[in-house]
């Protein structure tokens, strides 16, 4: 008798599913699905140091230097200086610590030289500018500035300057968040809550609401209407676990275990946040199938505590 393994079942159903997907959106090009995204960044070899971006004092005193400085200002004060593009209380520097310079905090110097690259996220080859537009659309739950806008031109100049000396298209150790592997026993949301209350709530608030001074967000909200939306990379538990383990609590990175990082990332990402702007036909399940099912480990469209996540909040 033939065993019906999940893989075999999948193979049998695949043509059916593919036909369905094609019927739903004829413009979609299935060939692109076969392409791989950016390869994983190499791990740092023993004794190897991370790339050191140029010093701020080395920004030239000319028109180019002025644009680079403007990019850094925007990077640190995104909401204050580009409010028309930011729909929540996030700034670039919230996820890219030390003004986008810190290794394992998605540094700009490791990202800039890797584009153009294919991204599953929007199923096409993206330029660096398009990649940044994604940050505005998802992480900042706002509106993407035009590719030739002053905002994106300045941010590009800043990223280019910071990458001075990095070989083009060379995967650099320290890129992204160097995610810890999923612990053998998986993750646990309830355990994550304990970590959160003890280590995170003091800054981000008991209900993830963050904290402000005047109109300026000091500690970013981690869920709710003012946080990143369901389409942001940070909504993936694996991605958040990497960011958290390397960078949180502030100044005390690498103090949480793989397990604690995964648990607390799962707790944070098991809360409602603004809807994924790619929402397909107003349907969470369809959106999950199209954009979330194979996007790392995430809870979009998943029922947690009897409630289906991905409803979105405004």
């Amino acid at each position, binding site marked *: 008798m033939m065993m019906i393994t999940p893989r075999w079942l999948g193979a049998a159903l695949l043509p059916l599913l593919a036909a369905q997907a094609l019927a739903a959106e004829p413009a979609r090009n299935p060939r692109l699905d076969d392409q791989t995204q950016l390869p994983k960044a190499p791990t740092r070899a023993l004794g190897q140091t991370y790339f050191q971006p140029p010093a701020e*004092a080395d920004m030239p005193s000319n028109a180019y230097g002025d644009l680079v400085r403007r990019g850094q200002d925007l990077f640190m004060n995104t909401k204050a200086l580009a409010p028309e593009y930011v729909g929540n209380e996030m700034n670039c520097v919230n996820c890219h610590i030390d003004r986008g310079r810190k290794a394992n905090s998605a540094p700009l110097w490791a990202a800039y030289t890797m584009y153009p690259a294919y991204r599953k996220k929007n199923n096409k080859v993206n330029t660096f500018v398009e990649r940044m537009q994604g940050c505005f659309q998802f992480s900042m739950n706002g509106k993407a500035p035009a590719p030739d806008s002053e905002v994106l031109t300045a941010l590009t100049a800043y990223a280019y300057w910071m990458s001075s000396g990095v070989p083009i298209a060379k995967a650099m150790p320290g890129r992204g968040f160097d995610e810890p592997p999923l612990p053998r026993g998986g993750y646990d949301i309830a355990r994550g809550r304990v970590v959160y209350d003890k280590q995170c709530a*003091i*800054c981000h608030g008991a209900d993830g609401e963050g904290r402000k001074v*005047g109109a*300026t967000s*000091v500690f970013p909200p981690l869920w709710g209407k003012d946080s990143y939306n369901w389409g942001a990379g940070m909504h993936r538990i694996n991605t958040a676990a990497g960011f958290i383990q390397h960078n949180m609590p502030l*100044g005390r990175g690498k103090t949480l275990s793989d397990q604690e990082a995964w648990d607390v990332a799962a707790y944070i990402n098991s809360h409602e946040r603004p809807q994924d702007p790619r929402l397909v036909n107003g349907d969470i399940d369809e959106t999950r199938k199209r954009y979330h099912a194979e996007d790392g480990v995430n809870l979009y469209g998943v029922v947690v505590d009897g409630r289906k996540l991905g409803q979105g909040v405004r």
Partner: protein
Amino acid sequence: MTPTVLRPLAFGLASSLLMLAQAAAGADGEAIIQKGGANPAAMPCMSCHGADGKGMAAGGFPRLAGLPEAYLAKQLADFRAGRRESPLMQPIAQALTEAETAAVAGSYAALPKVNVKASALERPREGTGAWLALRGAWDRNIPECTLCHGPSGVGVGDAFPPLAGQSAEYIEAQLRAWRGTPAQPGNRKTKPVAAVPPTRRNDPNGLMQHIAADLTEAEIKAVAAYFAGMGETTESFDASQHRLR
């Protein structure tokens, strides 16, 4: 009755309610600040922290005016419990009753908060106190001070007190209290010096201790001078405005 007649009536009602609340708590924060607590060991706060609660730089006595109530209450509790050591403050904190502690914290919190004039973007030079305050030293995992203490160091929530408005003497002393001093090995000429453990161990999640431990003595002085030099404006804080980083 017209509203003008109502107002003094309402005010009278409010102040008598306030007095009632104070009577119930059994402590008047204002009186303790000026005259001390019921136990004579609880000396009047103002003799060191100033008549206006803004501290006295020369003695390293910190500003208490406008600090968060929960922060002040926690510090007094920590002095009492020995998590924050001070030969001067520990006996005072121990001499205050719980009700007096709460009343004093409330009275100081009600005084005007420090406010610094919102400035244009500052471009600090590396190696200065401003650089540490605004950029940090991430190669040593030291976040910029303003990341937690807020733009211009005006303080954030109950856990991150204002640095603006404090004297260099006080800020330096606190950084050293978190740091302690490492042991000095002896040699033929000098005797070994034992390590002095930190005398302040009440930072939430140990957030300050490792920062203080990794700062050099010159950096401690520079960053303390930066915040001490911020000055204070009498303008009220405009909560609708962004503070640039």
